[in-house]
């Protein structure tokens, strides 16, 4: 049986037609690229929406040609907030790092021919695609897109059109989209976990997996346990809206003088279910980025990762604790203050594995031989942003201090740095690093660096000042600063951030240009241009349909053997048998 497996190593024969090769492909590499392109489209849209928001905050009465009525209304602003948040969290940060790069590189890095279940993989991509279509459709349905934020708290989200424009069809489309997304993510998570457990090459023990694989593994487990909960909550919310049930909508609701006919549902129940998903979700967004950052820091410092085991355990610790801290989003929600305090202490504790990771990243750089390639720059940027954004979490984790900071721009600053921009830096780092393997060509280094400078400086200019005005009391999700007097003083800061956002957003065009230009015109890449150690660099560029061209690698050592004393080269690939390693005398 096993010899048979070697002569016909791939589950699926290579497809030939265009449709089966590029549309309904079963190849994890093609599916990975499909996910990546979906996320790329989503991030472009998400950025455009955020730029519109920033524009409106500074020039609220400006005429915009493409908006009905010319001027943006408050509900249109809130629709932008909601759609921006939803698209970024689900279709960018959950899609690109895990489903995109994870799909492409997880099987190759562990030496498998494909994911465990290729058909399921295809199904989960197309379900994600449908979910994306559904969320885009929310822009065009009667009443427009929803306005209840990416957290969709009922009763605002549970009563339909009476609570505001966009809360009719738009909110329904939102729920449908998220439900589809949950289904797709569950399928994806299952596939990742089974692949890691059962399809590792000989010698690829768990403790020899690249940290990227650890990131994808823990993320998949989080996704498996979290998305089902959001799905359940979504189903109940949909029933409240359309079938007259009262899971979340309380009794005796009076909206604009009309008494509604619901029984005593619990709005806080939604918050518990949502954040039971929502907190792990932010780790779903960032863990793959942590894996990529670790991988890049080690590779381009030409040093083994510092404290491999500590890094792997820290990821598991984050995953585990990640399910016990959801209440830190609800300190002021009316939840019992005693549970609030317990959640607070657990949240402070989850800072520990994050700090361990940071220390080990610095330890990896220390006494290294750092090569400043574009992927490395983004990995270094990741570390800096993660430190900045992580530390501000220590304020929000304390309910007393949260009394002061909750729902201010401080929160917006915190989560954009630590999960938004840091995760995006992980995606960029991964793109510059793996582009040559995926497409056989290098991306332009000078353009990559330029892109980095603009994005790194820009991200800090947009989001650092948000801390300052947040501490002084600037409230988030406000369409306008005219309603509250003390907000007017922050306008100069808003203006600064908006201009920074324009520049940063424009800077992303450099990336797009670099990406698409390099696809055709980039310098040809060798099989291992970065002199890296993991299995994807042991195969052809781009990898053949079955990843390793008919044979399968065995693994002889850990993933980060750089600058090993006594070896000629400064890296030892995982697949080289010891006697094959070139040694110096």
């Amino acid at each position, binding site marked *: 049986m096993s010899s048979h497996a070697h002569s016909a190593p791939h589950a699926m024969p290579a497809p030939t037609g265009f449709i089966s090769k590029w549309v309904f492909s079963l190849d994890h590499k093609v599916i990975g690229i499909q996910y990546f392109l979906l996320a790329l489209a989503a991030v472009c849209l998400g950025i455009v929406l955020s730029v519109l928001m920033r524009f409106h905050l500074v020039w609220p009465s400006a005429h915009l040609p493409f908006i009905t009525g010319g001027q943006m209304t408050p509900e249109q602003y809130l629709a932008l907030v909601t759609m921006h948040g939803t698209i970024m969290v689900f279709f960018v940060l959950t899609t690109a790092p895990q489903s995109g790069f994870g799909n492409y590189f997880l099987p190759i890095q562990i030496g498998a021919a494909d994911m465990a279940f290729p058909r399921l993989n295809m199904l989960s991509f197309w379900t994600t695609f449908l979910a994306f279509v559904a969320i885009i459709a929310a822009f065009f349905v009667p009443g427009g897109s929803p306005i209840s934020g990416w957290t969709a708290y009922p009763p605002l989200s549970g009563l339909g059109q009476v609570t505001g424009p966009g809360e009719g069809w738009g909110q329904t489309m939102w729920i449908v989209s998220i439900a589809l997304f949950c289904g797709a993510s569950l399928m994806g998570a299952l596939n990742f976990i089974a692949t890691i457990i059962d399809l590792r090459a000989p010698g690829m023990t768990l403790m020899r997996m690249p940290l990227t694989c650890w990131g994808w593994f823990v993320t998949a487990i989080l996704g498996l346990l979290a998305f089902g909960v959001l799905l*359940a909550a979504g189903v109940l919310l949909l029933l409240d809206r359309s079938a007259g049930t009262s899971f979340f909508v309380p009794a005796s609701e009076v909206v604009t003088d009309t008494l509604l006919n619901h029984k005593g549902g619990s709005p806080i129940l939604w918050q518990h279910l949502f954040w039971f998903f929502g907190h792990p979700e932010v780790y779903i967004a960032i863990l793959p980025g942590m894996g990529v950052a670790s991988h890049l820091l080690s590779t381009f410092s030409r040093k083994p990762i510092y404290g491999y085991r500590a890094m792997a355990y820290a990821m598991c610790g984050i995953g585990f604790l990640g399910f016990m801290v959801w209440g830190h989003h609800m300190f002021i929600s009316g939840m019992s203050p005693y549970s609030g305090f317990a959640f607070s202490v657990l949240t402070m504790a989850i800072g520990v594995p994050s700090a361990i990771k940071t220390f080990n990243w610095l330890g990896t750089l220390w006494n290294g031989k750092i090569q400043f390639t574009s992927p490395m720059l983004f990995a270094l940027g990741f570390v800096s942003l993660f430190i900045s954004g992580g530390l501000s979490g220590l304020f929000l984790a304390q309910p007393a201090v949260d009394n002061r900071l909750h729902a201010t721009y401080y929160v917006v600053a915190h989560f954009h740095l630590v999960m938004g921009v840091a995760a995006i830096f992980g995606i960029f780092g991964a793109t510059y690093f793996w582009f040559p393997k995926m497409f056989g060509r290098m991306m332009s280094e000078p353009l990559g660096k330029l892109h980095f400078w603009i994005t790194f400086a820009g991200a800090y200019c947009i989001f650092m000042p948000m801390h300052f005005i947040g501490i002084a009391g600037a409230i988030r999700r406000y369409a306008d600063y005219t309603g509250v007097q003390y907000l007017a003083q922050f306008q100069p800061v808003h203006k600064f951030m908006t201009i920074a956002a324009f520049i940063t957003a424009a800077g992303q065009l450099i990336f797009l240009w670099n990406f698409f230009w390099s696809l055709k015109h980039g310098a040809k890449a060798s099989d291992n241009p970065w002199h890296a150690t993991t299995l994807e660099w042991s195969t052809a560029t781009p990898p053949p349909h079955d990843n390793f061209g008919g044979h399968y690698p065995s693994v002889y050592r850990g993933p980060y053997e750089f600058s090993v004393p006594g070896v000629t080269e400064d890296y030892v690939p995982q697949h080289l048998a010891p006697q094959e390693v070139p040694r110096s005398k």
Partner: protein
Amino acid sequence: MPIASVNDVVEIIEPKRGGPSGPSKPPRGFGGGGNGGGSGSDSPGRQRAYVTGMTVALGGILMFFMALVSAYIVRKGAGTDWRALIVPRILWVNTAILIISSFTLSRSRRHFLRDDLQGFRHWWYVTTALGFLFLVGQLIAWRQLNAAGVYLASNPSSSFFYVFTAAHGLHILGGLGALLAVAFHKGRRMSLATSSSVVAMYWHFMDGLWVFLFLLLTLGR
């Protein structure tokens, strides 16, 4: 095998304590850390992956239902509007049918393991039939509640009843599809041994889940 055994290689790189790179340890860890490189459809790694995949899927499904269950508990404690639901008697019969179907399924698997394909098929069909019977019984329960004027939105207790039974019923429907697929051995990718054991896992799980939900709905109402 084209690949030299990993064990008999002499490591030249100094092993370091605490590092990830102990020299050429043989594959280990759960799942064995290796499948002979074979990701082919009939390789042991891939067959094992079906079992792993089902285990993992059941974990996800469990979380979905546990979310509903915790919503049930919280919602029951939160409002003053909760009225206990008298579950239709026929649910006892349905529950018994589902439990019996688990026994017939084990019986079928035992025949399979003894290479008695005929006995296997026989009991497999019986299980499938019982599964259908269970679903019909659930539909009758819904009809009875409707006739008694208890609808989805009547009371939170009835809302939860319909949500639980519908969600579980859909999963049973999927299970029936799988039972039929195995009965006619459609999936060529999976050996009959794997597919029947994977489907059996699923079916037993749905059975156990139903018993739990049923107890919740009757005792915890």
